[in-house]
């Protein structure tokens, strides 16, 4: 008998999919499921297919969109850091 601890989300239809270490590939297993509820699904971050979705309220939406439409200029410190980074990679 071996024991590993995994964390996985149960789908809305009650299906639990487990991804186990690849070392167990192509082996037939007998499993005993001892579960512990790790938490509710975060309603702020729901799923869009496999893509996590982040919901914003009105104030956060306004701030975010204003920033996208009027993006702040990078600071001189960040410009310099980016330049140093590129130089370190020989770019």
């Amino acid at each position: 008998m071996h024991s590993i601890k995994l964390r996985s989300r149960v789908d809305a239809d009650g299906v639990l999919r487990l991804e186990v270490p690849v070392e167990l590939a192509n082996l037939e297993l007998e499993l005993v499921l001892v579960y512990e509820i790790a938490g509710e699904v975060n309603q702020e971050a729901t799923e869009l297919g496999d893509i996590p979705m982040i919901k914003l309220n009105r104030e956060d939406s306004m701030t975010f969109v204003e920033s996208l439409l009027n993006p702040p200029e990078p600071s001189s410190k960040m410009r310099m850091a980016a330049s140093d980074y590129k130089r370190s990679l020989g770019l």
Partner: protein
Amino acid sequence: MASPSFAYAIEPLKAEHERSLFSCGLEVLDRYLLQQAGQDLRRRVAAPFVLQDLDNKRIAGYYTLCATAILVQDLPPELVKKLPRYPLIPATLLGRLAVDSRYQGQGLGTFLLLDALRRSLMSEIASYAVVVDAIDAKASVFYQHHQFIPFPNQPQRLYLPMATLSSMFYV
């Protein structure tokens, strides 16, 4: 900005990377790399990248990137008209970033962050911002130090517009 003082490579996580030795001081980030990162890679849920110390064959740090979508709502029509997409805005989620304790204090967090930002910028996938979920207040300060903007009602969640990144790296 300090670059690594050792021979290094930043590369996608592979089976030969020795993940069990990684220890950054936050158990949740160590456990993620050890137990979850490989699964996320195989499922294409997230792309983990590691900073590998080539001589010592150790992981000095890592970060993860994945696509996300920001759902904005209740915007005035004049703002909506200006948006390329509404209400879902594609973005890049910098899910985790960590530096091993042995390599901390060398500026490698900034180096890894810049690598993640440039990789996000170079991606061919449409994205209008990089979003991070800071794991604690210290991490939030780190990201704000690098010009990330906190959401007013979610101070641990921050973002940086892709247009700002573009100016940062190309001008």
